């Protein structure tokens, strides 16, 4: 039964991905058909609307069978799942947390552990140095007001994506790589600390608590003042006007 459930879950994964892909493709197909040269006048104006109830329902009709098949597969998987005992959750403590716990239980760091700590510092610095050009390029682009002057927002956004997203992706890659290296180093340090002499359990250090009550009262007072000011300066009416009218572009209608 468990094996069957595993296979069914894999089928569900494939089916979900295929269904989403099919929906994306149908949506793109409607758009492409609407923008085909046959539907455009000489001045580039659409002869008939890109989307219409008829075109959308025709494209959705093509997905009727896959939808039914998906629903049937889902039902079968749920039924099988109901008769299978729940799988035990695999839990693994993050390396950072494990290391923190281990450090609290040993008398001192071993040589290997100290080496790993130095290595992690170096990795951290290297990552920071590698991130600097990305941050600089992004800030240079965002800081240049010329890039955000045009009211042609499609062009502004397109340019933003072309110029900023590669650096954001690179930043992400660097962070992931650094994180992987740091994690591995922590794993090695944790392994090294296992052989270190154990210390007697120490009482927990008392942390100085935040003056929460005073802070909360102050923040509530600020919130109240801001709300009252907002009601008086017309901010409340602004929210109402936006909420009771539909900005067609803001919800993606166009």
């Amino acid at each position, binding site marked *: 039964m468990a094996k069957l459930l595993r296979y*069914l*879950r894999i089928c*569900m*994964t494939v089916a979900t*991905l295929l269904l*989403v892909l099919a929906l994306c493709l149908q*949506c*793109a197909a409607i*758009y492409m058909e*609407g923008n085909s040269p046959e539907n455009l006048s000489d*001045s*580039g104006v659409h002869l008939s609307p*890109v*989307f*219409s109830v008829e075109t*959308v329902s025709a494209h959705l009709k093509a997905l009727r069978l896959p939808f039914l098949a998906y629903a049937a597969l889902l039902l079968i998987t749920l039924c099988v799942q*109901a008769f299978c005992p729940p799988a035990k959750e695999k*839990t693994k403590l993050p390396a*950072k*947390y*494990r290391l923190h*716990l281990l450090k609290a239980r040993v008398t001192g760091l071993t040589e290997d552990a100290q080496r790993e700590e130095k290595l992690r510092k170096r990795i951290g610095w290297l990552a920071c140095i590698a991130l600097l050009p990305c941050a600089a390029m992004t800030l240079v682009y*965002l800081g240049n*007001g010329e890039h*955000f002057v045009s009211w042609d*927002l499609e062009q502004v956004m397109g340019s933003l994506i072309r110029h900023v997203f590669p650096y954001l992706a690179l930043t*992400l890659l660097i962070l*992931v790589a650094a994180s992987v290296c740091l994690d591995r180093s922590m794993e090695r340090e944790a392994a090294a600390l296992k052989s270190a002499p154990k210390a007697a359990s120490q009482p*927990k250090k008392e942390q100085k608590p*935040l003056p929460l009550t005073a802070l*909360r009262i102050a*923040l*509530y007072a600020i*919130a*109240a*003042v*801001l*709300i*009252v*000011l*907002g009601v008086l*300066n017309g*901010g409340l*009416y*602004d*929210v*109402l*006007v936006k*909420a*009771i*009218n*539909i*900005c*067609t*572009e*803001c*919800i*993606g*209608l*166009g």
Partner: protein
Amino acid sequence: MAKLKNRLKRYLPTQRRLIQLYAALLYNAHLKGFITGNIYTGKIKALCVPGFNCYSCPGAIGACPLGALQNALAASGNRAPTYVLGILLLFGLTLGRTICGFLCPVGLMQDLLHKLPTPKLSKSRVTRVLSFTKYALLALFVVILPLWYSLQSLPLPAFCKYICPAGTLEGAVGLLSHPANADKFSMLGILFTRKFIILLLILAACVFIYRAFCRFLCPLGAIYGLFARVAVIGVKVDVSRCTDCGRCVSRCPMDINRVGDHECIHCGKCMNDCPEQAIFFQAGRITLHSPEIAASAPNVRRKYRTRRIIAWAAALLVLLVAFWYVNLYAPGTQSPADGIASPSATEAPADDSIPTGKEIGMRAPDFTVPLYGRDASFSLSSSRGKITIVNFWATWCTPCCNELPFFDAVARQYGDSVCVIAIHSSLVTDNVEGYLARFDYLMPFALDESGTVIQSFGGSTMLPQTVVIDENGIITYNAVGSVTLEKLESLIAQAAQ
């Protein structure tokens, strides 16, 4: 039998799920909207709800805090966005990310999608890094772009326009799925295609990754996360009991470093995982729930059960009152100019057999509106003999402001042969004359003081709207949605035929 009972128990909704459902229902109590295909326009919509819920959803009875924040920042050239900031501070301080765990309809949707029986991707260092993306989105799309474009007099709620899946699902799809809005399909284009694909990708990600949108993309979660240390209500840890075993962190599907940090949505799952029973749900100093209560003496349990029943009864009463108020009682919002005698729409003289109305092929209803910056008014009847383009707009509407230059270009290009008039909505939030003074528009601008002109052309809550009327006063085009210069030229050519 007991085995079956236990198995069935697994499928019963938890208290958290019931609260999520309740919140989703309360935020969308305008059930009439789903039947009529219109949004709620009552005055209580000025209040923000704590969770992520698009205010263009036909059922929504409150404003989305993120949409309100973007619009407030976009209008910050006129007034400081104190109301929305105050509301966010109030929600964040009281509930923090408990809102994400209990009171967010998008969170509920993600939780339900994750229930689909597929293999799941658990948290890792990659997801931990990705969880910071939401802060970048908050900074760029919610703060920087709206603020920057507000300096250029263009209101731009960038997150709503380019990313927000709640807007696409609840607003766009919610409205389009009603037959009464079938004509709105004609305005769909690249924006909808792109946003719909983004929505599908986010929904697909939520099937495999627990709360993918909440963890990686939601700027509202990022805002509430800033209040993690000071929020009054939420999951708290008794440090004196905690043995640092780390079970809570390792079992949590969110990218937390410790219970109650900026990534914790206070779902409370860890309360049952803690072997020391050191985690409990608190509101200030009052313990709302803890595993100890379940194991306590019967009279203590009874006391908590009674409290819970009273709380649910009160909550259901609130829901029923909300249903009654927004569906049966509440009148719609009236414009500030209501009650003032207005020139407004008047019937055209019935000089032929063509009926007067809003549809294409009908005679356009006559109206007279006061002009901005001139001590005069504009009457549609005075433009008879010319092609007339009527544009309904507002300073707070992004696409409206964006397309004004096209109408002005038409006015300059066609001169006296085409009459162009831009009529501002009756809902005025800014100094319209001050706004117009920043531009060199040639065409006349007027005010629809009581909202009756747009109503006579079939409009109500959607902007922008463009109406083209031929030389004989017959409507040749009447649609909601943005237009381009090319489109306007083609509409003029069509009207001239």
